[in-house]
Each structure stands twice: as C-alpha cells, then as structure tokens.
C-alpha cells in the first residue's frame, strides 16, 4: 500500500462547513439510548426532579453527543467533509481506537446542533492484528442554535485493509 499522498495530506487541519444534525436533540432518542444500556437516571426525563438540581432542568445524556450527528441511512446524504473525502487506498474497514468527548453545556431537548469536522492527523502506514492501514485522528465540534460550542469529540480511527482470510 502506498504512503499517504499530497491529496490526503491536504485534507489535514481543514475544518468542514457546519453541517446540521439531522434531528433536534429529542427525548425519544434519549429514551432509546437509556433503554439500550438500562440507564435509569431520572434527571434526563423527570423535569420536576431535574429543576430541583444545579443543572436546572432535564437534558439529554451527555454521552449522546456523537449520535446527534449520525446521518440517516435513508435517504442517503452526500457528505462533503474532509473525513468523507478521505480515501486511503485499499482501506475498506474502519475501527475506532480511542474517543475523547468533552461536554461544555447540557444539551436541552429542542436544541438544534451543527457539527464541524476536521482531520487532525494521518499516521504513517502500520500493520496491526486486524490489517494494514493508517491511524487517523479527527475532531468534531458541536454547536447549538446560538452558535455556542456545546461539546467536542476527538476520535482516533484505524482505517485498514484486512489481512487475507486464513492468514493467521
């Protein structure tokens, strides 16, 4: 597999245009989220309980941050951000290695978010137990309807060409 090219290198550090999240921050998706991991925290749904706290009202689980930016699978959306444009030759698979989220503000139901993404780093070619490819770091920044930054997500991904079957 060739090393990273100028075309790929040119994508590093470029922040995409803000892309609107497909759905507003909403209670139904938050309930599905909590059902998924059996999270019984009342602060997400019981406004009476939440208003009595320093957080001053219910809000969506903070860890949902990245989910708000996930695109619908239908109808398909053509994304133009640098990550969507990144084509590493032969790399057909992607796995997450590390994710850091910082939560600046509680996300309130009804908030409409936008997200920008940039590639921070593309590593040299490496071979792991999964295959041969590149570690790619990205930064997603989330803002609310007032333009206020509400959270960031830093992802390290391994984009790779799987080992041929039976190779181990």
């Amino acid at each position, binding site marked *: 597999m060739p090393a990273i090219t100028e075309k790929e290198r040119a994508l590093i550090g470029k922040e995409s245009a803000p892309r609107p999240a497909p759905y507003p921050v909403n209670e139904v998706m938050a309930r599905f989220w909590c059902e*998924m991991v*059996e999270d019984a*925290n009342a602060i997400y749904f019981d406004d009476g309980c939440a208003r009595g*706290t320093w957080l001053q009202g219910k809000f969506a689980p*903070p*860890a949902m941050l990245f*989910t708000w930016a996930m695109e619908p699978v239908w109808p398909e959306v053509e994304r133009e951000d640098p990550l969507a444009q990144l084509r590493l030759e032969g790399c057909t698979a992607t796995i997450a290695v590390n*994710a850091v989220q910082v939560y600046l503000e509680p996300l309130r139901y009804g908030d409409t978010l936008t997200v920008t993404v940039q590639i921070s780093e593309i590593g040299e070619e490496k071979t792991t137990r999964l295959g041969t490819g590149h570690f790619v770091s990205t930064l997603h920044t989330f803002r609310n309807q007032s333009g206020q930054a509400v959270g960031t997500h830093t992802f390290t991904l391994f984009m790779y060409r799987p080992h041929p079957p039976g190779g181990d």
Partner: protein
Amino acid sequence: MARQWQAGDSLPPIRLDLTIRRAAQAVAGTRDYYPAHHDEQFARANGAAGIFFNTMFLQAFAGRAAGEWFGYDAFLRRLEVAMRGTNYVGRTLVAVGTVAAVREADGRRCVDADVTFSTEDGPTTAVKLTVQLPAEGTVVP
C-alpha cells in the same frame, strides 16, 4: 446528602449482558449502521471474531455508570474511551473503577475516575471520566 469522595475509593461493578437483542438496540440507539455491528460475516471478514459493540454504546454505558456511582446530578464533563479489546455479543460487560482524583477546577468540584470495562475475554476498554458535582452547600429546594 452528597457523599465525600476520596482518591482511591472503589466504584462497584455494574453489569450488562451483551445479547444479540442489545446489539440490535445499539445499532438503532446510536444510529451506527457500520456492518461490523450487525453483520456477522462482515465482522469476521474484517478481522473480528463476530459482531461487536461500537464506541457510542460504550460511551452510553460509561454515562450510566457515572450516574450510578456519583449521583444523578453529577454532570459528565469528560469521557475517554480507549478500545483495548473487543466487546462481543454473547459476553457480559462489567464496569469497575477507582476514584483517581477529587479536585476544584475553575470553581468546579470535579471527580476523575479510572474505569475498566471487561468481558469474559478480559479487559476490553480503558475509560477515564470526569464528573462535576454540585457545589458544596448547594441547597436543593
């Protein structure tokens, strides 16, 4: 009454069965339709031993654990999830942790915790989280 946390305090185990039904919930609940999380054949062809759970699911479980350990009004400020192994369908996920530090930062009372997720296959995920607790002496009406 808010509990006083100290570095070294242990955070008791929280368990979750990683059933195939939960994998389906995770696909829909996180909106992650990457085939490794629902297509056994694809997962195996790409080096995994089967369908496995995604990053957002692990973030969700960490968020639940933070609330159960530090209280429903502890606000998650930072969450780092490092994939060390793979969380496969059919296993049981267990979170345990230790308080790493209790500190004041920018007028915020924060607790840092080091957490490990494990399955029958061993430790799979190294998690570091920070929660902000209500200011001391906060009167809740």
